[in-house]
């Protein structure tokens, strides 16, 4: 059970890394247009 004390912060930190990546992706505009890119793929 003591492992939890170390594992929990590690798990949360790992999750936070992805959350930060998500924030970066949004602020670079990757989620601005969710309709066009899927169609563009079909045209190529």
């Amino acid at each position, binding site marked *: 059970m003591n492992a939890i004390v170390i594992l929990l912060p590690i798990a949360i930190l790992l999750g936070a890394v992805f959350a930060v990546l998500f924030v970066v992706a949004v*602020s670079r505009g990757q989620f*601005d247009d969710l309709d066009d890119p899927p169609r563009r793929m079909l045209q190529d």
Partner: protein
Amino acid sequence: MEAAADAYCCAGCELASEIIRGAGLERYYAERTAYAPRPEPLAGGWSAVPVAGLDDGSCEARLMVDGLRCASCVWVVENILEATPGVTLAHVSYATGRATLRWDPASVTLGDIAGRISALGYSPRALGEESRPDRGLMLRLGVAAFAAMNVMLLHASIYTGWLDPMEHRFLQLFRWTALVLSTPVAIWCASPFFAGAIAGLKNRVLHMDVPIALGVAILYGHGLVATLLNHETYLDSLGMLVALLLAGRMLEARGRRRAAEAAVSLAASVPHAARRVSAGAVETVPVTELGAGDTIDVGPGEELAADGIVVRGRGALQRALLTGEAEPVSVESGDRVEAGTVLMDGAILVRVLAVGGETVLGRMAAQLQEAADRGSEPTAADRIAPVFTAATLVVAALTFTGWALHAGIAHALPITVAVLVVACPCALALSHPLAAAAGLGASARRGLLFRSSDALLGLDDVDLVALDKTGTVTEGAMAVASAEDCTLRIAAGLERHSIHPIARAIVAEAARRGIPLPAAGHIREVPGIGVEGTVDGLGWRLRTGGAGVVRLENASGDGAGEIRLSDGVRRDARGTVEALRSRGLEVVLLTGDHPDAARTMADAAGITQCVARVTPDEKAVWVRARRDEGRRILFAGDGLNDGPALAVADVGVAMATGAASTVLVADGVISSRALAPLAAGFRAAHACRIVIRRNLHRSLAYNVLAVGAAAAGFVNPLVAAVLMPLSSGLVIWGASRVEAMVRREEARAA
């Protein structure tokens, strides 16, 4: 949208379009769903916004206002601005986010007004700039979802600890971690709800944000205190609640942004430049430099940039944008011509009488714009919100008093918190936007796009459908009705290079019949009369002979055959009319045509009632008269002259192929060349209405039951964590039924 039908705003756009076409990328125009983002607003700020000076010395301008969440936001902006000294008028449209402002330049500037709007928490911007997708909402949703899932996992461990008690220090660790993760959710992710609630409370409007903000505040406040005191918390419910609500809000914002973009893209239709003739020289000038008295040169295929009188030349003018009639009329010296019409052949010199807002088109567009800026109704959930909030607070107070008297304050507190927690109207807040988004989507997939869910739901109350004839019930384009093959062959040879709609119809019919086009020589278009040339060594002349008839004559002027053209009834018109009638709707044909022609067309479409020879104004009067009789009326039309009728009808539906400005005033637009989407729209509206009502009932039933259970002391954090997603899930599932219901109805109709 094919760029061929567009007017370019400048030579740069035309060049860019040519490059795109040259690279074989025409499909970009056909398949783009949104316009490419434009650069940031001009550095000049608000001075770049066009401001009109009025006669009484005041100024007028239009701005877009982003961030309007509900009808009460509109109320807030309008009232705060009108209370500002110097502002004489502030009108905000919820549907389009467009604000019309009038002010006295001596006491206030547009920058000040924009500043006030910003201070209220909304974002003003110049009209015509693209709205930016709301990244903040996406970020908040992402962070809330991340935190919610982690907190849920931690709480799952805590709940299993009830069966197999864990060490106190681990419990502490889990609870504190959950609290830390929930803090940004409550403070940052939920901030739009707090902002909305505060704005509402300031203006004494209790809308949906108030009970939501109350719920979030209680969940988090209780979580904070309970963690400090080593009690159970409801933090897992908090994260889930905020994430779901943000997702619902994002769906809503996306639907509204698409509708707004569609309106903006269709707004500009008059060319921005004209060729001015002065002292024999021709120069291209922007329309803004054009004034009354100038003379402009218009060539074949060009659109007129101003109203005026033809001073020289003759040609065939297509007035579709104004009248909705595709058939061109001939014009010559002395005739009045209007901006927005297209010269199909010939060449004319026009003395300008009016430009911009003074033109017939400009005045009509302004009227249509006013009508388009109609407000939006608060949803049923918004109307319930005040009662709901009051009821929750009363029940909570009663619960607290009851339990405090019965078992003491220490026992009453957690039960009261449980009441307030389960009363949080998450499902109620989601019930309308999700079902509305599903209904709008179901309708759009079938070719009928609606500007707002109000317009879609309005469709379900309609009991009378009035259809315009040309372009709505009919194709709106000329087609060959009858012609002999040999006549058609020669005519097609003469007309093969013309862009005139009749010529195109003749060539298309020849191609359909598999007639090879003969080589023609010496082709000469005689503006306003027809075309002449030689085919097979003989001279021919093709002469337009009035209503829908083209005569072929040989060189000596004798008739050699004729081609009859007519505007055919849409293939799906009869089926659509039947489908509408089977829903108990009365269908009427409204047209400016001769009664006999109207009767023929009505019979072909299976319509029993028709009202013929009505002017555009009479159409509107007729629609209004039916409304006064208590009927709920839908009007569908495509010409600019249908605009007034579209505006006064309960639901106005425009054809995307019709006059651009009607699209602005209409509540809905049929995006395909068909009438069938109308029937599909009625099905989607009906399904949407049923689902919204069902969702509302379900969520209210949940709230009543859950609050009852909580007041009785049966609700603990685990029960809340199960009940709340369950109720939201029920509402989400309900919304997903819209599409299935529409399909079932379609299957029954087929």
